[in-house]
């Protein structure tokens, strides 16, 4: 899985490409989010339009990061999940815990 990170208007925008699943991809995701939050960046947008697979380990890592961001006064917002990822998040009833946007710019702006 490829993870790219950029900062826009004080918000960390993370783009995931590939598959967020058990093993190295989840480890990489977890480390990236922990590092950002530890550094004081808890306002985070995750772009999912090129992530075509997320398993339960990926969901677990997302939920853990979400809780951590909240504890540090921020939150995580999602952008454009693909069909299967959207279905997966909906099936386990976590999709509605997140604000979901169709583009990163709107997600970033929503932080005010």
């Amino acid at each position, binding site marked *: 899985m490829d993870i790219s990170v950029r900062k826009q208007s004080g918000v960390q925008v993370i783009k995931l490409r590939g598959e967020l699943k058990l093993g190295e991809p989840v480890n990489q995701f977890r480390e990236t989010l922990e590092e950002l939050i530890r550094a004081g960046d808890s306002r985070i947008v995750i772009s999912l339009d090129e992530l075509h*697979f997320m398993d339960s*380990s990926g969901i677990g*890592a997302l*939920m853990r990061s979400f*809780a951590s961001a909240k504890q540090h006064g921020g939150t995580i917002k999602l952008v454009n999940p693909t*069909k299967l990822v959207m279905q*997966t998040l909906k099936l386990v*009833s976590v999709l509605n815990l997140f604000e979901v946007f169709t583009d990163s710019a709107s997600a970033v702006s929503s932080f005010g």
Partner: protein
Amino acid sequence: MELQFDFKADIEAIAPVVQRVSELALELGCEPGRELQLSLALQEALANAVIHGSNNDAARTVECRVSYAEAAPGSKPHDILIVIRDSGPGFDPAAVPSPKTGENIHADHGRGLYLIRELMDEVSFARNGTELRMRAVLSKLR
């Protein structure tokens, strides 16, 4: 017809099995997108067999059998039956809590079995939980 995958209980060994079964579903003419649902269910099932059934011990083996029949040209694809076995102590599937109740929604684990049941058309366990049987109708999405 049958495909047989026996592999060391290592999470790195899961991806090639999932990939091959996804390709098979497409070769059999599944509804577009069904191969992705099947891949996710299989990923979860094999991960459970490796982590919980085999304790991530690469000295142990996970067995995976995929049974299918090719449909006549122009007719709907048949179902796929997948049987996964591990050599662990077993467990009670009925005792696994729902990931959708109370604080479980916010948990960082515990969703795999639920996803399998939602994405496959039939799921059953045998041999004290060390054998998982799951069937997928390929002609429609869940």
